[in-house]
Structures are given as structure tokens and as C-alpha cells.
């Protein structure tokens, strides 16, 4: 999950390998994509939630995403953020953490961030939030294998 245009769907497609079903969330026109990830003998359902800015819903997309989180109690949420705009993206991370949802933070678009000369102290961020953090550039496939490893490790090793 994450705000619009941060590369969620690219990551989703990578994890599911394209085994995807897209359907409207019941009673809405908001589309939710679901897919299966099968890796290292583990099979997981992956959900690509509509882009949201906050867990306090204003738009139909936000309403649907929150309902998904509320009713399906995910084993792990992967919060994908635009690394360039970390400051603006963190409030949603806070809300996921406050809700008590297990979270893996993915700083995406690292290629663009690096081009701007930005660097990140991953362990400091992990300490500040108390969750694992991964750097990725999903467009180039960077960081995605590691993301898959961590997801499997977290969910299967629970």
C-alpha cells in the first residue's frame, strides 16, 4: 500500500508474476488487484490496494483501502513510499504503525533520489520507526528480490 504513483503496482506485478485478478471492491467502482505469490514453497495472497494519503478516508479509494485493512487483517503490509518525498510519506507510515499493522517500509524510486544526491541512513530510520526498511528502484528491478525475501521470511517465519 501507499500513496498514488509510488510504484506499488510494479512491485505487485513483480511479487505475483502477473498472476492477477482485478475486481471492483463490492459496492464501489474502486478496483482492487489480488494475486498469488508462490516462492520458496510458500504461497501468499498479495493485495494491491488503491493509492491513499491517509487512513482517515476522504476518497472512495481511501475508504476501500481502509476497509481492506480493517476486515482482512493482513499478515504484513508493505508500505511503498517515494524516497524523494520521505517527509510527506511518513505520516501514512505513522498511521499504519499506530493501527498496529505489521509493516515493512519500502523506500522506492531510489534511482531518482540518488540522482538528487539524497542518501538514507536505513538503520536510523529502522530504529525511529521500529520496523524494517528496504531501498528499492522498482522500475529497474532494484531491491525487489530482497523485498520478496523479507516478505517470505516475515510471513513464513511468524
Amino acid at each position, binding site marked *: 500500500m501507499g500513496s498514488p504513483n509510488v510504484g506499488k503496482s510494479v512491485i505487485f506485478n513483480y511479487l505475483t508474476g502477473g498472476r492477477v485478478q482485478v475486481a471492483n471492491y463490492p459496492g464501489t467502482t474502486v478496483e482492487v488487484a489480488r494475486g498469488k505469490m508462490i516462492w520458496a514453497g510458500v504461497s501468499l495472497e498479495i493485495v494491491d490496494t488503491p493509492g491513499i494519503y*491517509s487512513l*482517515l478516508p476522504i476518497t472512495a479509494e481511501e475508504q476501500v483501502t481502509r476497509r481492506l485493512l480493517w476486515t482482512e487483517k493482513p499478515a504484513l503490509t508493505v508500505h511503498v513510499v517515494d524516497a524523494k518525498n*520521505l*517527509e*510527506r510519506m*511518513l*505520516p501514512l507510515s505513522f498511521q499504519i504503525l*499506530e493501527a498496529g499493522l505489521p509493516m515493512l517500509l519500502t523506500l522506492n524510486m531510489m534511482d531518482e533520489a540518488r540522482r538528487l544526491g539524497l542518501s538514507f*541512513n536505513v538503520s536510523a530510520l529502522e530504529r525511529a520507526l*521500529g520496523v524494517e526498511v528496504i531501498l528499492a528502484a522498482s522500475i529497474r528491478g532494484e531491491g525487489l528480490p530482497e523485498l520478496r525475501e523479507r516478505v517470505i521470511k516475515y510471513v513464513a517465519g511468524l
Partner: protein
Amino acid sequence: MSRGFRVDYGPTIEGFIARLLPLLKGDYPFHRRAVALLLLQGDQEIAALTARQEGPRVRQIQEIIKGAGGLSPPPASTIALARHRKAQRIAQAVMGKPLVRPLGGLLDWLTLWPPTAFPILALVLYYGLYRFVGGLGAQILVDFIEGQLFQSWVTPFAQELGARWLSPPLADLVAGDYGMVTLGLRYAVGIILPVVGTFFFFFSFLEDTGYLPRLALLADRACKKVGLSGRAVIPLTLGLGCDTMATVVTRTLETTRERIIATFLLALAVPCSAQLGLILALLGHSPLALGIWVLVVGTIFLAAGHLADRILPGPKAVFHMELPPLRLPVVGNIVMKTAARIQWYLIEITPVFLGTSLLLWFLDQQGLLQLIISALRGPIQSLGLPPDAAGIFLLGFFRRDYGAAGLYDLRASLSPIQLTVAATTLTLFVPCLAQAAVMVKERGVLAAMLIVAIIVPVAFLVGFSLNHLLGSLAMIGGLGNG
């Protein structure tokens, strides 16, 4: 995975959370602290879910939420601000290079700290709205496009063509008093476009600097008093340029309720640039008269908004916005956005002006305009104004420059009291036919008719009372001679 992550929302919000937590005993998929936060921010869906689980404690919970709803600033903005600050701290601590903020953290902070934020706001509005939109747009560009291009080229050309090729009623339709070219197109392109175009530029600039959400946050408190959220600053400010445009922009508000209140206030008590120009011309020489006008219109704005807030059903406006950092905007982006908005304006609003001139032409052909004017004479006289002013009011509604010019011509024969009364009533009166048409388009026939049905009597009633009040005061104080 995460234990103990916490944002401190300050004593007030934390106090409310502490009161809510012991009451939330049900089974929730989110931590109870998160549930409490959502409740305090006025989340309806969560409130309904809580009600189902908490049985006897529901009333207490609702009491607490209600209490929080009355806070100023509202919980939603306090919470958003606390998160924004914490995010800023963390991001600064973990990022190798400070965030891309050429404007710096100091300015960021100055625009939010009330003692400096309001003077900065005043400067932004003065230079942005008054000097740039009002000066460059409403005067220099209007003079050029309307005054030069239309008066010397387009209008004579259309009249020439009409006279040569068309029979009289049709020639009037193109280039008469209410012609599609001479009125419709001239208004849409010559008068409104420069104002709206410069406004769009200013607006896009504010948007790209990240200042707009700060403005909304600052204005939230004032807006709350009239049943709106800080977001409504945008259409209300735009109304000072063109109410018609602003009515379209009320779309950006979240709830139908807010949209109706904003539409109503725009129509009643937000004078557009054409009205402002007229009023300044009429009352500008008398600070006292101008002061009375500001006082009366301002009071009506607050009172009407407050009443609408009390009367209209539905949840109160909730304000929720992320605060982006301030940054230097890229000129190319601003130009692109402005161009996209102008295109949108031309497609959406120009037909309204063209349709309006078609309707006027028709009414004029049928002699109906004169009929309406004579019907207005009675109410106008009750305001203490000469009967001739009836035509001004109606024409002011249909064609603003006629109303303005008419009143300006009558100016010499009117006393300061009469001028103040006329200016006030004209401001409150439905601004123009194009705005009425947009109201119907955006809010539906019923709501638009209701709004007009409230505004017309209110305008006359206020004018009537003001006339009598000023009349009696003048006998004591001698304003009548001023």
C-alpha cells in the same frame, strides 16, 4: 513488528485519547489508540462500527467526540500537524542531505507560526491578489483586451458584418447590446479571462510553492465559523475575482453541504472584481461610506454563514490536508498548469456567457426586460433610491458594466446615504446571470432557486434597514451632508 512507536499529539488530544481508551472495550482490528484518533477526527464509519460494539458506553463516547469536534483548531488539523512535525524530524535525521528545500526550514516555520504567519498571509494576498490579479489582470490586461482589442477591432467588425449581412434582430443577436460577440464573447474573453487567467497563474504558483495548504490551515478557524473548512479559502478568494468561476471551483470542497454553503456565500456576500471596481469608484472618496459597506457586507457574510451552518443538516466540515514542505516552484510547471486551467475555463464558462447573451437578447426582443424593470421600481423606492435605479439593479444583474455605468451616472444626484445603500444592496443582490446559470449547473435547479429566493429579499431587507438606520443617524450626526 513494531512496538512502542508513538506520535505525541499534545496534551489536549492526548487527554481526549485517554478518556476514550477505557471506553473502547470491543474487539478491533486496529489498535485502540488508532481507533480513538479516527473517532476524534470525526470518522463516521468508525463511529458506526464502535457504536455496534460498545453498547452502553456509546453515549459517553459520542459526548467525547462531540467535545473534540468543538475544538479549535480542529483535532484533524492538530493531529495532521503533529504527524507532519514528527515526519519532518525523522526525515531530517535519516536523510544524508537535508530535504530539497531551497527556501529553507525557517521560512517553512515562519509561515505556520501565527504571529508571523498572518502578516505573511497579508503580504501574499496584497501582492498576489491586489497588485497582480487586481492591477495587472483586472486593469492593465482588461484595458488592453476589452478596451483596445474589442472596442476598436472586434466589436466594430462584428457590427459591420451584422449590418451588412444580417436582418436587424439577428444582427442584434451577434453584435447588439446583448449580442453573442459584443456581450457574451467580450465578457468571457475580454473581462473575465484576464482576471481569471492572472488568478490561475497566482494560484498555480501558490500551489507549487506548497503555501496553499498552509493558507488553508491558517484560515480553518475562521472558515469553521461559517460551516466551512480551511479548504474553502480557495473558492472564496477566487470569488473576489469572479464569482462565476468560484462557484465552479466549489467542486473542490468535500461535502455537498460545504459546497452549498460556499455557493450561497459567494452569491450573497462575496463581491467579484467587477462589483469591487464599481464600489470603489462610488464610495472610494468617502472612507466612512466604504467602512459602513465593509462592516455591513462582512457582518452579513458571517451571519449568513453561521445560520447556514446551523440550519443545514449533515456533518461539520472536517479539515485534513498534508503539509508539504515549501519549495521553489518550477516556472514551466506553473505555466503548464495555468494553461490547462485557462483551457478548462474557456470550455466550461464561455458557453455560459454565450447562452446568457442569447437569453438576454430574447428577453429584450420580447420587451420583457422593460416589464421586469418597471416591476422593480416599488422595492427600489422603498430603499430610498430614485425609481431610475431599478434599471440599474436589473441591468447590473444582466450586464455589469451597464449597472456600474448607470449608477456612476446617477452618482451626482445621489446622497452619500443613497450611494452606500445602493452599493450594499447591489453587492448582496445576485451578482450576475452567468453566476446564476452556473449555480443551476453545479448545484441543481432546486438549490439554485432556493439560494436566489433567500438572497433577493435579504438584499432588499438589508438595504431597507440600512437606509432607515443611516437616515436616523444622519439626523444626529450629520452624515447626510458628508
